[in-house]
C-alpha cells in the first residue's frame, strides 16, 4: 500500500492532465486545472525546501567548524537577510536594492567572466584537445566571423551565406535534435506515468 499509493497518484494525476491536453473533454478541465495548480504550489514548496536545505547544510557546517566556515556564514547571512527582507517587505525598495546592487552585478559579471574562461578553454583545446574539439572550435570561429562580418558593405554574399548557414544546415540539424528530444522526453514521461520509473518513492 505504501508503495502503491504514490504510483497510483502519479499515474492518475498524470493521466488526467494528459487527457485534458489531448482530448480536452469539458468535464475534466476543472480537475486538470486543480492538479496543475497543486503542482505549481508544490514546485514553489520544493524551492522553499531546497533553500531550507541549503541553509541547514551550511549552518551545520559552521557548527561543526568545517573549513571555509567564514565563507559559509556569509552565505547563510546573505540568504537569511534576503529572505527576511523579501518576506517582511514584499515588493519593497529594499528587496529591489538587493536585487539590483548585489544580485545583478555578481550574476552578470560571472557570465562576463566566462569570456575569459572560454578563451582559456579555446587555447587549451587547441593545445591538447581531441581532434573533434578542434574541429568544433574551428567551425565555431568560421560561423562567428560570418555573424560579425556579415555586411553588405563587404560583399552581399556574406549576409546571404550567414543566413543560409543558419537557416539550412543548422536549422535542419537542430530540428533533428529537437525531434529526438521530443521522443526521449515522451518515452521518459510515459515511463513515469506507467510506473516503470518511480523516482519519487524510497524503495
Amino acid at each position, binding site marked *: 500500500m505504501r508503495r502503491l499509493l504514490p504510483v497510483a497518484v502519479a499515474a492518475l494525476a498524470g493521466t488526467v492532465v494528459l487527457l485534458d491536453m489531448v482530448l480536452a473533454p469539458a468535464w475534466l478541465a476543472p480537475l486538470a486545472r486543480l492538479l496543475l495548480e497543486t503542482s505549481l504550489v508544490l514546485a514553489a514548496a520544493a524551492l522553499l525546501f531546497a533553500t531550507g536545505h541549503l541553509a541547514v547544510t551550511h549552518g551545520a557546517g559552521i557548527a561543526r567548524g568545517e573549513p571555509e566556515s567564514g565563507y559559509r556564514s556569509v552565505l547563510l547571512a546573505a540568504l537569511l537577510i534576503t529572505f527576511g527582507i523579501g518576506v517582511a517587505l514584499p515588493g519593497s525598495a529594499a528587496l529591489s536594492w538587493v536585487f539590483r546592487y548585489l544580485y545583478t552585478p555578481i550574476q552578470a559579471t560571472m557570465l562576463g567572466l566566462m569570456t575569459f574562461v572560454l578563451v582559456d578553454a579555446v587555447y587549451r583545446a587547441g593545445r591538447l584537445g581531441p581532434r573533434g574539439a578542434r574541429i568544433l572550435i574551428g567551425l565555431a570561429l568560421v560561423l562567428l566571423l560570418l555573424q560579425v562580418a556579415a555586411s553588405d558593405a563587404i560583399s552581399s554574399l556574406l549576409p546571404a551565406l550567414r543566413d543560409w548557414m543558419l537557416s539550412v544546415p543548422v536549422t535542419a540539424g537542430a530540428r533533428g*535534435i529537437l525531434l529526438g528530444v521530443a521522443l*526521449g522526453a515522451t*518515452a521518459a514521461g510515459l*515511463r513515469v506515468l506507467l510506473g516503470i520509473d518511480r*523516482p519519487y518513492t524510497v524503495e
Partner: protein
Amino acid sequence: MPGARPPGLSHAGKAHAVSGYGASLIANSDTAVLVALILFVPLLIFFTLRVSAGLRTPLRTIAPWRALPHLSQRSTETGEPVVLWLAGGLQDAAGPEAAALATLYDYVSAQQARADQPAPLRTTHPVALLLAMNSLQGNRERHQLGASQQPDEICFAGPAPLALASAISADLRQGKRTAILLAGSFEAEALWCVASAPLSGAPMLSATADPAGAALTGLTEDPLSGERALPGEDLFSGGAYLHRPLTLGSLLAEDWMRWLLIAIIVIAVLLTSAGYGG
C-alpha cells in the same frame, strides 16, 4: 503548389515549399498527437513486457553510461567519490528530465552504499534534490546504514544556474574525486565545470539534454567520437544502460517510433514532390 510561399531566406518564415500534408498535419495537431500516443503507449508496454520476459538486445555504446560502472567500482576501492553535478536549466521543472537525473543519482548512490561510501551531489534543481534524497535514503537503508555517509553529501547550490559554478568551485576544494558526472540542462555554468573539473584531476563525463551546454562541454570531450553522449535524447536513456534493464523497453519503442516518423516524412515528401497532397 498550395502553401508554397515565395522563396526567400528568412527566420520569419519558411524558405521551402511546405507540403499540403504538412499543413493538414498542423491543422489536425490534436488528432496527430492522439495517434502518436496511441502508437507509442502500446509499443512501450509491449517492449517492456518482452524485456521483463527476458529479451535483451545490444545497444549503441554511450561513453558515460559505460564508464560510470567502472568508475563507481574504482571509487569504492579508492574511497574517492564519484560526484554528480546536476543542473536543471529552469529551477523548478519537475518533468521527465528530473526523473532521468534522479535515475543517474540512484545508480551511483546504490553502488556507493554497498561499500558505505559517500555519493556527493551538487544540484540547482529542487526536485532533483528531493528525488536524490529519496534515492540516498533507500539505498543506504537497504544496507542497514544511516541516512547519509557525509553530513553534506547532497547539497543544493541555489536556484540560479550560475550559482552551480560557485558551488562546484567550493566542492572542488574539498578533496580528490574519482570522476565528475555532469548531467542535465546546462548553460554557461557548463563552461565553468569544463574549466574547473581538470583542477580536481578527475575525468569528467557529461550528458546533457540541452545542446547549448553540450557545445561547451564539447571543448574538452571529442564531439566527433562515436561514443560520446549525444545532446538531447541520450540523457533519458541512462537507466536502461545502468541498472534499470526494464526501461530498455522504452528505448526499443523509441526506436520504432523514430523509424516510423522517418518513414512517414520520407513518404510524404516523395508524394509531395510527385505532385500529390496539394
